[in-house]
């Protein structure tokens, strides 16, 4: 089904789009159980891994993690 006349003209995307990493992979079984628990814990507080959760939340919302 062709698109309508409003779709003629110059495109805005510019180049073929590359598939991004699937976020779901971060919370599915994988090689990083500690970090996985951290992310899950951060998303659904209180989580099963409060220490790791604090690490993730801290990395995102506090300045204490910067290493330079």
């Amino acid at each position, binding site marked *: 089904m062709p698109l309508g006349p409003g779709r003629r003209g110059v495109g805005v995307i510019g180049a*073929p789009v590359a598939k991004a990493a699937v976020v779901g992979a971060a919370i599915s079984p994988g090689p990083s159980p500690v970090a996985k628990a951290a992310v899950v814990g951060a998303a659904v507080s209180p989580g099963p891994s409060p220490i790791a959760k604090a690490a993730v939340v801290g990395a995102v919302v506090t300045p204490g993690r910067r290493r330079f």
Partner: protein
Amino acid sequence: MEDRSLDELGPVDYLIVEFPVGQQNFTGEGAAELIRLHDAGIIRIMDILILMKDADGSVEARELSDLPELGELQRIEAQLAQTLAEDDVANLAAAMDPGSVAGVLVYENLWAAPFASAMRRAGGQLIANGRIPIQAIIAAVEADALAEVGA
């Protein structure tokens, strides 16, 4: 919208959500959440396209108005700016797997507009932006944890 100046526009993003074969459970929940964001003034929906990629890699693009039942999306459809051109379809579909269906959304970040405008008035200019993948945060946190164990 018509009486906003160019300087008052928020950043415009696009996203593609792919539904692989066997995972196409369309209940209308996503559309309802999208409309909620639009109605709340958090984003302004500028364009929506539905892409279907066949097993042989051919791509078909459909307008929102081509869907049999639009529901609440009906009133959004009438406001679409049709930002995407036919030329964009192949570029967008390059990220899709054969057999999948994808929704392409172009939206203005209304929530960011006042801040962006203020930055421009202060002489600032955006020189980079992006998204940090959650996997990168996981990897960094894990590396920190391993370093602490080893310390």
